[in-house]
């Protein structure tokens, strides 16, 4: 094994993916933090034993660190992030590393599989009415009924050529992020840790908005986030259908809460989003809206949405894994070998089980 081609970038991505800081990895390897930094910046080359140890700790075959060519790294400025302002930089690096590895895996899969063509429209809109019209245009472009609810948003994105994945255990402070850009397969990464299936759907719709409306560099400005939320609301709850469905009050000034909760289930959006959309479309007055929010918070209904609808799951990667049998790769376990990842790492990146019957490579130690 030659270490001449050792890639510091690949080491850094692997370390961030495993959620280790440089000093943690150094401690695991019995090295200094500075030496790990040198390895990652390419100022030093490791010994074969160090490469092997890196692989053991991080869950990669030594060959992974020595493949020719850099990984197509997900950088923060290329991705639209839906996150809290207080999200630590390290958490961002971790989910970006997850995205980088996922993107690499998709690229390898795409070399042997034909994925759905990219049919995501690119639209320009910044005024509120233009954004709502863009959402309607998007439905038309995909030949969807203009006024009906969408059963599975994830499936819609996947049919449009967007690969959706959900990360678990990476970060609670990141809801989702997406990467588009010329020459890249569009990818949406959403947080599956949140048990609220409605929040997950909203995150996906929000990222779809970024892919349609916004170009890199992605600056997480409040305006852009508002635009994405406005698009998500108009796309998930189109004016005509939603207005027709919105329940009439049983008495003036009172909301028909039973009807409102039915809308949540029917349109697959959170109760707060239903109220906000009703207000935006002037189906309720400002006073009714304000009272509704107070009422929701007082009862905690906006938080109790775990069982509101069935949790959508990304399907495209599972379909790709199933289709591997008819390709030279053959099976997911072979994909792991081709990527020089451990099966566990492939499971972590893809979110899918890799054949349990196959003898696995040495698993990484838990950090």
């Amino acid at each position, binding site marked *: 094994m030659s270490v001449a081609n050792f890639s510091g970038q690949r080491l850094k991505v692997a370390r961030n993916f495993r959620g280790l800081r440089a000093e943690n990895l150094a401690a695991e390897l019995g090295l200094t933090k500075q030496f790990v930094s040198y390895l990652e910046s390419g100022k030093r080359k490791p010994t074969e034993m160090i490469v092997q140890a890196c692989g053991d700790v991080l869950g990669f075959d030594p060959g992974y660190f020595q493949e020719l060519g850099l990984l197509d790294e997900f950088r923060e400025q290329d991705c639209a992030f839906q996150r809290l302002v207080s999200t630590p930089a390290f958490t961002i690096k971790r989910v970006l590393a997850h995205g980088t590895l996922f993107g690499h895996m998709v690229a390898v899969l795409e*070399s*042997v*599989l*034909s*994925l*759905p063509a990219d049919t995501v429209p690119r639209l320009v809109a910044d005024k509120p*009415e233009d954004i*709502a*019209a863009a*959402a*309607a245009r998007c439905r038309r472009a995909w030949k*969807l*009924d*203009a*006024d*009906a*609810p*969408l*059963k*599975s948003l994830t*499936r*819609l994105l*996947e*049919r449009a050529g967007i690969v959706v994945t959900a990360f678990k255990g990476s970060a609670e402070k990141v809801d989702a992020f997406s990467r588009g850009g010329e020459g890249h397969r569009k990818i949406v990464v959403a947080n599956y840790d949140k048990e609220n299936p409605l929040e997950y759907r909203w995150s996906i719709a929000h990222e779809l908005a970024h892919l349609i409306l916004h170009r890199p560099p992605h600056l997480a400005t409040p305006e852009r986030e508002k635009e994405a939320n406005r698009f998500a609301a*108009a796309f998930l709850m*189109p*004016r*005509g*259908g939603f*207005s*027709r*469905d919105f*329940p*009439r*009050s049983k008495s*003036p*000034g009172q909301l028909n809460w039973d009807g409102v909760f039915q809308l949540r289930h*029917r349109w697959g959006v959170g109760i707060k989003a239903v109220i906000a959309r009703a207000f935006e479309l*002037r189906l309720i*007055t400002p006073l009714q809206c304000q009272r509704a929010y107070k009422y929701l918070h007082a009862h905690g209904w906006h938080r109790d949405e775990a069982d509101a609808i069935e949790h959508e799951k990304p*399907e*495209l990667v599972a*379909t*790709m894994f199933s*289709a591997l049998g*008819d*390709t*030279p790769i053959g099976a997911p376990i072979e994909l792991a070998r081709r990527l020089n990842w451990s099966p566990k790492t492939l499971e972590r990146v893809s979110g899918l089980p890799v054949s349990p019957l196959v003898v696995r490579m040495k698993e990484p130690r838990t950090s």
Partner: protein
Amino acid sequence: MKPWDLETQLTEGKLVELATRVIEIRFDALIDHDPDKGDGAWDLGTKVYERTIKQLAWAAGKEFPWLSVFLSGLYIDLKVDGCPVRIFRGDPDNPNGNVTRWALENGDRTFGKNGTEFFEGMEPPSVAWVWVMAVQTVGDGTPVRVIVEQVSDEGDTRNRWAVPLNLQAIRAAVEKKTWRANVESMAKPPIELEPAAVLPKATEDAASDERS
């Protein structure tokens, strides 16, 4: 001063009835209005205007026996028991040029600028005043209040009276009359999609097999 204090024929009941009808027409047009399909302010404005003048003309002398209408094409003159009243959408504080021009042509010059009555021997007042009904709306055309007031040909206003209307109740009634009564039967089923398809790429061997 209330309108009926100055013009006995402009009673509260008639003005409320007239304003209610005007608001009903606007809400009805708003139901059809869909900005997501390309409808804009111009489309809404023209729809509301034409519906209003025609429906008031239909109601004049029948449903509203106190209302008389002169309708010529898209031009309308309204009179409530003989008193001219102009309806417009806009800011009651700043009547637009159409209203002030109409005041100039049709205004009552009986009263001076300060509201004092004109008596024989006095110099005729130069300012003309008319009664208007202003429908104030927000950005998307939703009405928020209706004001009856006097407007002069110089754009001044006076004797303002807000018509007491329950806009939510009017809206609910309009919606009930139209499609909202049949919500259940009109609810469309959710869009169901098949999963995305993935196919193996044709290998060179497979391609050569196909050629042979």
